[in-house]
């Protein structure tokens, strides 16, 4: 199978959908002429024209509100939010309007809207361009949240997001844009709420999202050298969340570490760990562990920045401690 980058996969997904459905349009800052700072959307304006690939002023609340209105009235907008950190600017349009309109209109209005944005640190972008803020929107009922972890996942989830009749926020990992993966030429969609078991194991379950899937995979390799068999699960979407796959895995392995690049406190790791505790309590042989980003503004110093996120080594160390019964060790 051919291999393409995550950038190309997203580009393909959006292009194919734009061709399929004329009600879809895309807007955001630097999306047309520049093709985004990550060059993900290069070539789209040439094919679809400036009416469907719209460069906006630096005015996130404005174009986000515009998109919500367009979605209510028959269009299917894709909003390109240059950095996930800019979510703070569009919270009212997204959380008070887009998320609640279907409910508050008694089902008369749909908001088929995609916000495509990103997450991830260790790109030397400093504290205001390095956050992983998917927990903010996952907290709001009415919003779906997808976290692709490879080029294959990015294409399949993006197409599903565009076809969903509800607001979906899809976060891409900034570091992964140039990572290649096998992606089929033929069309495919990845349904929401179906986790992916990337590696089967029997001793410990590593539930990892987005950028942390690679970390968990590498940790599993390190553990295999120690004769510890780790199962790696990517939930793919955190809203909706495929609980059953996670719970079935933990019932088998008796241990779990949840790894996510959002800040650890009050985050995704805590939510998933809590569900495991609640629903698989009598299958646990060790405390369920959370491994998120350190609760600090992401440092600009590369040496410090790299310390703030889980690494294959820190995950493997935690897993070894759990297997050894060293329950006081918390990475």
């Amino acid at each position, binding site marked *: 199978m051919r291999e393409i980058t995550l950038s190309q996969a997203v580009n393909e997904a959006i292009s194919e959908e734009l061709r399929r459905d004329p009600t879809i349009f895309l807007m955001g800052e630097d999306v047309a002429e520049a093709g985004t700072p990550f060059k993900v959307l290069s070539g789209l304006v040439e094919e679809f024209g400036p009416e469907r690939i719209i460069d906006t002023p630096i005015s996130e609340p404005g174009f986000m509100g515009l998109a919500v209105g367009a979605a209510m009235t028959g269009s299917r907008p894709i909003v390109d939010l240059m950095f996930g950190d800019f979510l703070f600017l569009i919270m009212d349009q997204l959380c008070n309007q887009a998320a609640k309109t279907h409910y508050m209109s008694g089902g008369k209005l749909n908001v088929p809207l995609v916000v495509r944005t990103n997450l991830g640190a260790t790109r030397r972008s400093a504290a205001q361009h390095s956050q992983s803020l998917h927990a903010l929107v996952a907290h709001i009922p009415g919003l779906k949240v997808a976290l692709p972890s490879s080029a294959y996942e990015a294409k399949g989830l993006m197409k599903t997001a565009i076809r969903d009749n509800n607001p979906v926020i899809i976060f891409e990992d900034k570091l992964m844009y140039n990572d290649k993966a096998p992606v089929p030429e033929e069309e495919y969609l990845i349904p929401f709420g179906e986790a992916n078991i990337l590696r089967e194991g029997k001793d410990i379950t590593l539930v990892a999202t987005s950028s942390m899937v690679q970390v968990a995979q590498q940790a599993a390799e390190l553990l295999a050298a120690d004769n510890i068999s780790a199962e790696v699960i990517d939930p793919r979407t955190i809203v909706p969340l495929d609980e059953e796959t996670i719970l079935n895995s933990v019932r088998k392995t*008796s241990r779990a570490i949840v790894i996510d690049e959002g800040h650890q406190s009050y985050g995704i790791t805590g939510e998933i760990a809590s569900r495991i505790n609640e629903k698989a309590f009598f299958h646990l042989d060790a405390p369920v562990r959370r491994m998120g980003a350190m609760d600090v503004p992401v440092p600009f110093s590369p040496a410090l920045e790299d310390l703030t996120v889980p690494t294959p080594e820190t995950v493997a160390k935690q897993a070894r401690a759990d297997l050894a019964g060293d329950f006081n060790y918390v990475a």
Partner: protein
Amino acid sequence: MSHEVIMPALGMAQDTGLLVVWHKAVGDKVSVGDILMEVETDKSTMEVEAAANGYVTELRADEGSEIPVGQVIAIISETADAQPQTTQKPEPIKKVEPALPEPVIPVTEPNPTAKSSELKPPASSVGDRILVTPKARRLAAEQGLDLSKLVAAGVPQPYRIADLDTLKTIPASNVAAQSATSHITARVSTAAFTRFSEWLSDEVEELAPASAMWAAFAAAGLRSASNSEHLTIRITHPASGTITDFRDPDKKRLSTLQIEENSEPDLVLHDLTGSRIVNVQYAGQECPSLNVVQEGDIYELTLTFLEARLSVQDAFALLESFAERMEEPLRHLL
């Protein structure tokens, strides 16, 4: 027709209002728009106007009371002499007075009805609680494993699934075997038993071995201390290396004693006659054992037992009974 005055809702999230003061008294004439009362909410104090013409015939709330929104607090009637519908005043939620501190329950006299369940210590106190993971605890319960044996064996807590494998290797008897054993010893002359054996060999063609008779003696002595219907006595003879089990030897004729194979003994008798060994005691053996040693014309009888299995009283009775039968074997036949 009378008009009911209710405590108004003056704010969106208001549940109650504080009636500050009545501007009208019972019997006063009121017109629409007259100030009837002042009500205080958490935000402000407001004057509330009458919404009907007539006479105040009832004031059901006291000044200074906190009244739920919607509750009837006054009646305005068309005539001054209308009969009150009810004399009851509404229950104010609380008087606005400085709150007294909560009554303190004396420490020396805990109220037995109030919080008895909370005062009770948990089933196992924290000090005794065995720390174990949820899964290991569940599996131990399902498999009938006793986690306290891991504590006794000194395995560090908290226990995990891996520790259950260790637990399975601890023999059931280990704990009992660790507890101390007791010994009592008796001495009897060999003369009587020797004479009896010689007489018996003259009378009976198929002679039972001496060990069979000892098994019968031991079973008879153990019978009163035992609840079980059947007793198995194991005779070991280290000198010849033989081990023989007898089932209920005290209930059968000496010549017809049945020999049982491989049953769990209720007592082991070590026949050390003809051997230089003077004491045998196996680790982990839970049933009482009786050593019979011959020194010259004396039999030395030593009973070794766990008090958990045989009380000291029963042990004395058993050994006494055995010694008596050795001294007067005919007593056994009677």
